[in-house]
């Protein structure tokens, strides 16, 4: 490339970088102007921080049992100074600490499952949209099939066969939820396929694969990010449903769904066992929904979710 070309390239990149920074500033300003999204962000930052710093934040060990202190109501203070802010469960474990450690499980599973499903779904959507024809038809039938299965039963059956473990749960959740990403990506690719930059790239000799990854993929990422954010919420709820039915991450690791299941037996005497885990789930999911909804409105309002 000539010297003049190199200079022009650098100047172009500098302009791009400045524009990107301005875009980022604009996005952040929009964020702070929207109260709902801000609340969602605050909630999520709170949950994520306490999950990451769990050993430091949690007041007590979540696994150690103290039968003498079982089923104590919220705010119970042991003479000697220790307070159990949210009470203890049926084995004397502090509920607040278990909630904090439970956040770890939920967030890990939610994020990993979304990463897996998102990658899978985006790939399938890209291939189906770009190739069209029989490949497309096959992928669409595949999507319909996955959608027709009642998800809970499918997940239950697979985990019952494979055994409950962190890895299997992430695997099952990822394998079964790629559909939303695939459908949206395929739609985007179908629209983009007719644009000039694709014909230009093909005229310049780019192979199909290169077109897909270098040109189409960056443009479909926006809706994928929006969907991924909202899907994390769905993954968290599904994971807690699995734990509730006993097929999630096994005890003694605390999970929000598992705590709910434990609390069910003590509903009439100790309401706090079941109420607080449910509140945690609801709060986290609410935060994600608020942030994701704002993200969708800012990035791509056309999305029907």
């Amino acid at each position, binding site marked *: 490339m000539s010297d003049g070309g190199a200079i022009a390239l650098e100047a172009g990149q500098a302009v791009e970088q400045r524009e990107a920074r301005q875009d980022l500033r604009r996005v952040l300003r929009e964020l702070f102007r929207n109260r709902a999204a801000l609340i969602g962000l605050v909630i999520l930052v709170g949950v994520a921080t306490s999950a990451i710093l769990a050993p430091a934040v949690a007041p007590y060990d979540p696994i150690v049992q103290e039968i003498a202190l079982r089923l104590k109501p919220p705010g119970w203070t042991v003479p000697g100074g220790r307070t159990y802010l949210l009470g203890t469960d049926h084995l004397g474990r502090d509920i607040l600490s278990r909630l904090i450690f439970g956040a770890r499980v939920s967030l890990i599973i939610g994020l990993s499952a979304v990463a897996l499903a998102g990658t899978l779904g985006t790939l399938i959507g890209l291939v189906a949209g770009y190739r069209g024809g029989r490949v497309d038809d096959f992928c669409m039938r595949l999507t319909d099939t996955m959608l027709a299965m009642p998800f*809970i039963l499918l997940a239950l059956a697979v985990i019952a066969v494979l055994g409950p473990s962190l890895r299997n749960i992430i695997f099952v959740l990822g394998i079964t939820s790629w559909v939303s990403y695939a459908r949206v990506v395929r739609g985007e690719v179908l629209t983009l396929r007719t644009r000039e930059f694709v014909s230009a790239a093909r005229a310049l000799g780019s192979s199909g694969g290169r077109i897909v990854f270098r040109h189409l993929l960056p443009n479909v990422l926006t809706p994928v990010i929006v969907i991924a954010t909202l899907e994390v919420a769905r993954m968290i709820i599904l994971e807690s*449903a699995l734990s509730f039915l006993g097929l999630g991450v096994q005890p003694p690791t605390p999970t929000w769904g598992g705590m*709910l299941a434990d609390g069910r037996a003590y509903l009439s005497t100790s309401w706090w066992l079941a109420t607080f885990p449910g509140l945690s789930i609801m709060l986290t999911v609410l935060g994600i929904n608020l942030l994701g909804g704002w993200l969708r409105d800012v990035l791509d309002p056309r999305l029907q979710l």
Partner: protein
Amino acid sequence: MTRYLARRLWQSLLVLFGISIIIFIILHLTGDPAVLLMPPDATKEDLDNFRRIMGFNDPLFFRWPPWQYLNPPWRFLTDTQYGRFFTGVLRGNFGMSFRHQQPALSLVLERMPATIELTLAAMAIAVCVAIPVGILSAVRRNSVLDHGGMILALLGQSMPVYWLGIMFILLFAVRLNLLPAFGAGGWQHLILPAVTLGAFSMARIARLTRSGMLEVLGQEYVRTARAKGVSEVRVVLKHGLKNAAIPIITVIGLDLGTLLGGAVITETIFAWPGVGRLAVQAISYRDYPVVQAAVFTLASIFIIINFLVDVLYAYVDPRVAYK
């Protein structure tokens, strides 16, 4: 139009076929279903006998060379495990339940009316509450009613279904002692599970109705109707709702199918004697024929509902057949 519908029908059948394959594969995921189904202390001889009797030694789909299954032409159906499973399904034979000495499919069909009752009740409650709320929110935009309604809807979509169910039990059955906590019986037994199951749909339909009505009420023909002096109620209902109804109807149809799946957890919490609860119990007892029958039946109903939604949609908006 008929070609479009015939195509959708064919696609539905293909999907059913795909589901049968998936259900079939799940049982063989670990590679050796004999180990899975027999008690842990079975001897090697027991396992071998079991495999021989159940036909697990035959190939799943085929062995090399694959064309050996064309001679005689029905060999695929008799000599492969999937072939036998497929013919069984066609005849409605999913095998005997391991736990109850009864054909798996009849167990499922016994419980189906209960699940259908619950699902229909849930959807009815959801629609009866959500649509008026959505309409009112759109008509009184930005009022307390609007904001309050939408906040509740957002919460409703963020809540895990079973937590809502447990909280209902706590409030209505334990504290207030107003309604029974579990089992089936009169309408009192139906209310809590139905509301729990329908909550998510209720929230979604409310939000959808509100946005649909907002969009429609801003249209020109509404302004014309108002200028002509039509009463506000007629404007909202006759001109507004009818035009906003199409996507709402689609969502209702799709949600009906989803509710069938969601009923699994609700039925477990409230001990409602439906197919979902049967399936969960069957899974914990490793009663795989029942699991297969339950999943296949629920999926079939979902596919049928989807097809009916397609028909309805094509009837209401014929443009969709000419894509």
